[in-house]
């Protein structure tokens, strides 16, 4: 019965996505086309990666507000190394990912050692990493052309980009880590009841550190995806990415109190947000209108999900025995 409850959560999300697609298809004859699919698929990778990292941190009972700035910093490091220093692309890629991991470990270390709430620590890095991104690029956009173009190349026969497939693969791996691996159980345990986790011999500090490093790393990967799509490293990139990532996770049913969340559901949340953006753009909605509608849909999606799960619990209670 509890399995039924969980699959119903997921079905509901898929239904919501279906309703959105049907709605936009009805409003515009040209919405349901391969081109739209491509647009959505190519916009997704940065958000999908960022939301995956965010879901990890949320399940562990923390929050990472720095991912948008870390994404920008990673792009900036990449641009600076390649354009100003003449470093090769693979080395610069590693350096950018390293910068992300370093940011994550700084978050983890401060939360662990200073016993500060992750909200505050990562809020600090949201500012700090953005500043570093400006310093690294001298506040200039670094044009890179096709140097990271490989990520945008479409895979023959699928029509989807390499970046998209990498992001999907990342989400799947993360899903299995949470549901099928010992480390995932430890993340859930720490997020649910940190003191109980410590008293059965787990190390909440290590779990938290790992999760923040992971979040920094995938934020950097998200930044590189953005660089590759734009063909440039923009120190302003990724602004608000953390909030979209939180929105996707929350639409997917991840708890902000820790202990509960699903990578696949977060990914459907990402699809919902991306579909909404593409659909509204298709209808010619202005930027302000887009934001109002997106905000409303986020709140409605979470409210509808809460109502549905309450209703279903009552229904199961009445008929389930």
């Amino acid at each position, binding site marked *: 019965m509890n*399995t039924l409850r969980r699959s119903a959560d997921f079905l509901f999300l898929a239904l919501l996505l279906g309703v959105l697609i049907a709605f936009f298809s009805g409003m515009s004859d040209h919405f349901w086309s391969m081109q739209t699919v491509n647009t959505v698929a190519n916009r997704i990778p940065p958000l999908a990666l960022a939301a995956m990292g965010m879901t990890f941190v949320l399940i562990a009972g923390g929050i990472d507000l720095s991912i948008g700035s870390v994404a920008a910093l990673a792009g900036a490091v990449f641009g600076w190394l390649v354009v100003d220093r003449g470093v090769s692309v693979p080395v610069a890629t590693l350096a950018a990912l390293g910068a992300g991991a370093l940011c994550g470990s700084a978050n983890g270390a401060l939360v662990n050692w200073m016993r500060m709430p992750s909200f505050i620590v990562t809020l600090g890095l949201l500012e700090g990493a953005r500043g570093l991104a400006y310093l690294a690029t001298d506040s200039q956009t670094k044009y890179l052309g096709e140097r990271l173009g490989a990520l945008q190349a479409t895979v023959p026969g699928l029509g989807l980009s390499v970046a998209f497939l990498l992001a999907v693969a990342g989400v799947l791996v993360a899903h299995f880590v949470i549901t099928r691996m010992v480390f995932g159980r430890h993340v*859930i*345990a720490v997020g649910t*009841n940190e*003191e109980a986790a410590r*008293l*059965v*011999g*787990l190390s909440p500090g290590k779990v938290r550190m790992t999760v923040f490093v992971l979040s920094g790393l995938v934020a950097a990967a998200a930044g590189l995806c953005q660089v590759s799509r734009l063909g440039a490293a923009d120190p302003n990139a990724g602004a608000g990415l953390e909030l979209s990532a939180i929105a996707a996770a929350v639409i997917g049913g991840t708890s902000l109190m820790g202990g509960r969340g699903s990578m696949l559901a977060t990914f459907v949340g990402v699809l919902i947000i991306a579909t909404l953006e593409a659909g509204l753009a298709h209808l010619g909605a202005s930027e302000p209108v887009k934001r109002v509608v997106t905000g409303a849909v986020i709140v409605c999606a979470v409210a509808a999900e809460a109502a549905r799960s309450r209703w279903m619990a009552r229904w199961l209670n009445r008929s389930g025995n």
Partner: protein
Amino acid sequence: MGEPRLKATGLKKAFGQNLVLRGLDLEVAPGEIHALIGGNGAGKSTLSKILAGLAPADAGIVTLDGEPYAVASRQAAQARGVVMVLQELSVIPTLSVAENLFLNALPARAGIVDRARLHERAATALRLVGLASLEPSLPAGALGVGQQQLVEIAAGLAQQCRVLILDEPTAALSGAEANVLFGLLRELRAAGTSVLYISHRLEEISQLADRVSVLRDGQLVATLPAATPRAQLIQLMAGTTVQLGSTARNSVKARPALRVLDLHAGQAVRGVSLDVSCGEIVGLGGLVGAGRTELLRAIYGADRRTAGRTLLGDDTVDFAPRAPADAVRRGIAYVPEDRKQHGIFAPLAVRFNAALMRLPVRRGLAGWIDRVAERRASTRLLEEMQVRYADLEQPLAELSGGNQQKIVIGRWLPCQASLWLLDEPTRGVDVAARQGIYDLLRRIADAGAGLLVASSDYEELAALCDRVLVLSHGQVTGSFTRETLNPRDFMTACFAGIAPTGDPN
């Protein structure tokens, strides 16, 4: 007897597939103390939650003084004069004692709290529960657990009530505090209030109550005079004859499991030395606040020690754990006192809780859980511990406290620990299931582990332990064998170490 104060007929309640109340009947007379006893999952807590408006019944009728009574919230129940003091503490630690007492009825003028009136009323309520010396403006978090419990009871009494429901009120109280409570309940009875009193402590019931109702499997078995012999009550609760007798013990092997030398931990533990041999169960008795919990936590590495040494097994080097993880690696198991805060992952599946300590991993794939083996291992563990549950995937919070406790203990079994530290292992567990836990602990000892068991229950220590040490004020003040243990000397030892305040040591 006239019309009953409270009458329930055919009450039914299910949580998921788990049928908790199966047509329960109950009658409580006006102005009586009515005790409610029964095993884990017998339906005591569920019944009291329904009466207090915390959970709706699925079927059945309740009347209060002859009028239909069905409430949807705690506030609605209180408006009808039915007040429940919760078993789990719900004091808000950052608010003052007075604010906690009157949180739902703060005296205010234009939205501004009238502090003078609040503190005056709080002082009256506190005097009722024997806490007259307590400053109402103190933050509630600064109080000990026993005092917090008394504050909760005072909060319940601060309102006019026809029926007062108490669920295990003395679990966290010292003997003196409990006596204050009993006196208070007798006064209430004299004033015409009915008290529904849930407890596992049968001696309290014979002392305090007028009548006792025995529940089993969600139904009323019998309502009897409280003077009914306890053997008969236990038998009614269990359904079969249960003897709460001493467990058989093997000769104690001489190899040490743990040696503690002059251990200090802050002000709570002040120079404790003791040893536990393999195959031996050593009890730790003492009053609330004597330092038993702190001693176990210091040995386990949950709290920092300030001085002293602990040696494991035949070791000659100090085992100084920096965190519980170190202790677990060395084969120490720990069962905490506060199950809800420190023991369980309440919203997570029963399976998750049962299997967490030893997750079966697929060979060749590092950290990849074999979920079939995990389910099989959890099922086996739950069967072995005789846990009542509906579904492996059901949240642990849906199980009764005693069944949760069985999992908290049982999940360590696959670790094959050589030293067990147990803090109040049967708190909130009914008499019949207690015996099961005692038998289990004895089997663990017979398999060669050493056990150190802290308990506030003298009978438990007497029934379970090979030796009993008494802590008082952070020091060992008594040491008894099975032969020398007796209530009078035990009590004397409990009060022996209480030094005058201001003692520099």
